[in-house]
């Protein structure tokens, strides 16, 4: 079983380790166990507490941030509403066509097996992709408006924190990013303009791993009110490319439902949907490629292991 500690030791870093655990929110300072796992020589960037400090000391920025959050929530609400209906359409078409197994047979037969499908499933999934793109565009526009209304460069307190964070990061030999609330984590990373130098080794897990990718996709098939649809949330730091990170996949995804998994894999088919199960780890190579053995969702809805490293 791989832990953050064993992963860090395998990198043989020489020097302090910077930590970002803003996803833990108000528990951010409870770091005894984290220090122990990482060997003790840590520099905690405390991005969550710094965020609270900014909101406390810069009321103009705080007001703009709250207004942005309201607008973002409203956008998310509309996106979810549209997505729910779009994916209902996808599943309905998929059921009519006999599910993922029938689709695989149809592909094998060059589209000749079973009743004519007229590309209905692909087109239905494209409609969901269209929504994902629409949401991402709208979010980008919201960020632009926010940046125009409240330029962070004008905020002394943000500038001060950014300077301190840059200095702290500069003296560290590695970065550890923990799990927690990925929304809180992404907001903090953005507020303090965290850039991870390519040469800096990173150990990231759970929400932290998601934040390292280009596009953060939220998912949870076992919520109290039933499965909810996977949704694009925001951009990550993009340190890892071509990957949708799916931490705790066994606990959070209905992997025994190949039809549902097939839709997810086909919806994000331009990237690998990588399963990050508890106790497992993947080491992304310097060129950004995935190692062989990484577990990914296939467009047939099954879980596959990469036989050869993928770039």
């Amino acid at each position, binding site marked *: 079983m791989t832990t953050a500690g064993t992963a860090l030791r395998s990198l043989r870093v020489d020097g302090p380790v910077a930590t970002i655990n803003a996803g833990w929110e108000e528990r951010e300072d409870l770091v005894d166990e984290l220090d122990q796992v990482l060997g003790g020589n840590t520099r905690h960037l405390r991005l969550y507490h710094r965020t609270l400090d900014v909101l406390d000391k810069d009321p103009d920025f705080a007001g703009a941030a709250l207004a942005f959050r*309201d607008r973002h929530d409203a956008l998310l*609400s509309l996106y979810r509403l549209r997505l729910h209906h779009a994916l209902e359409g996808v599943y309905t078409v998929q059921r009519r066509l006999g599910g993922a197994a029938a689709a695989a047979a149809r592909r094998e037969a060059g589209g000749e097996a079973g009743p004519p499908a007229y590309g209905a499933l692909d087109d239905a999934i494209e409609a969901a992709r269209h929504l994902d793109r629409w949401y991402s565009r709208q979010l980008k526009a919201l960020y632009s408006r926010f940046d125009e209304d409240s330029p962070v460069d004008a905020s002394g307190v943000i500038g001060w924190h950014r300077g301190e964070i840059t200095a702290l990061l500069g003296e560290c030999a590695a970065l550890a990013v923990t799990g927690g*609330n990925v929304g809180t984590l992404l907001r903090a990373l953005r507020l303090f303009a965290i850039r991870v130098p390519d040469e800096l080794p990173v150990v990231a897990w759970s*929400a932290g791993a998601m934040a390292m990718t280009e596009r953060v996709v939220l998912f949870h098939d076992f919520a109290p009110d039933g499965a909810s649809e996977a949704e694009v949330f925001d951009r990550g730091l993009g340190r890892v490319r071509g990957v949708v990170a799916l*931490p705790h996949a066994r606990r959070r995804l209905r992997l025994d439902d190949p039809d549902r998994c097939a839709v997810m894999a086909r919806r994000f088919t331009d990237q690998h949907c990588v399963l990050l199960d508890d106790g497992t780890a993947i080491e992304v190579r310097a060129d950004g490629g995935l190692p062989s053995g990484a577990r990914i969702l296939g467009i047939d809805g099954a879980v596959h292991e990469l036989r050869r490293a993928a770039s």
Partner: protein
Amino acid sequence: MTTTRTARLAVNRLRERLPVDPAAVDRFVARHGSPIVEGERATFLFRGEADEVRVRHRVVGLPDPLEMRRLPGTDLWAATTDLPHGSRVEYQLETRRGDHYERFNDPLNPRIAHSPLGSSSVCAAVGYEVPHWAVPDPEARPGELVDDVLRSKALRREQPVRLYLPARYNTALRYPLLIVHDGTDYLDYASMKTVLDNLIHRLDVAPLVAAFVPPRDRLKEYPNHAPHARFVARELLPTLSGRLPLLDTPQGRCLMGSSFGGIASLSTAVRYPGVFGSLLLQSASLVFTDIGTDHGGGPAFDPVVKFVNRYRAKPTAPVERLFMSCGIYEPLITPNRSMVPVFRSTGMTVKYVEARDGHNWEDWRDRLRDGLSWIFPGPQKFVYE
């Protein structure tokens, strides 16, 4: 006592041993208690001298009263009935001695449920468990209850309101608002503060502000009463919005209630469409007639039936989302089931849940997670650790 053996019922095994001495009956009762739940059968017991003993309940489909029979040569009375998996039934026993009738909780059953009308014994079938999120969890950080009083012009009185502020309440954030009819009863009999603390702690429900509002004259104020609706929509809501950091959209506001409180919620939303985004109705008294006026509910239901009949004639969508729950053992199950397609026909998104339970506060408690997590889902989707 609960067992899963379904071969011969314990009481029948005792019958086969008759006659038995009082000590044998003592041992039987001490061993099994009451009711004895065996598979999908429940046997109610009573010990004592009486002319008649009955189980009184309000389970639709079972005879009420359920006559108990005396085991010959003993003072032990018994009655056996069906009890499907997962059921929960509230009941009392009734004795007749000459002309004297007496009703009381089952003295052999320590399990009691409370309500504003008193208490009842509880018979829980195999498969029923009190939800883990309905009992106090020391890990769950508690929210705070704050008593407030509003001067209401609509109601022409001081109206008490008890506010629930979630753990880690922060005025820099914005919260959804849940307005709860029969608020004091939801807190006292449906453990609603414990439920909110736990569901918020477990990320099942978004941190929210709840306003628990008790009625003064429930039968007058709840069935489609204009002053009550005006108080909720035009006085309570603006006052709370001015004082507290609340979401400023209909989607962030929900009205909830059970029984007549469900009618109060629905009728308020109908009078003020678009103000609230969702409704949470539990065993709502959605009684109606298709022809004539004989609804069988007594005079208290007259304004309810008038309102529901009018709504059915011209259904509207006063909110976007509607959660409904009802116990299948209560008489209101039929009208509730009948209203689901009516509500859906308006374009509202409706989630409807049934339970093998009755018209009581513990049933409503047990359905709170279904309703609240659907209306105000928690941040589970954001948390990966």
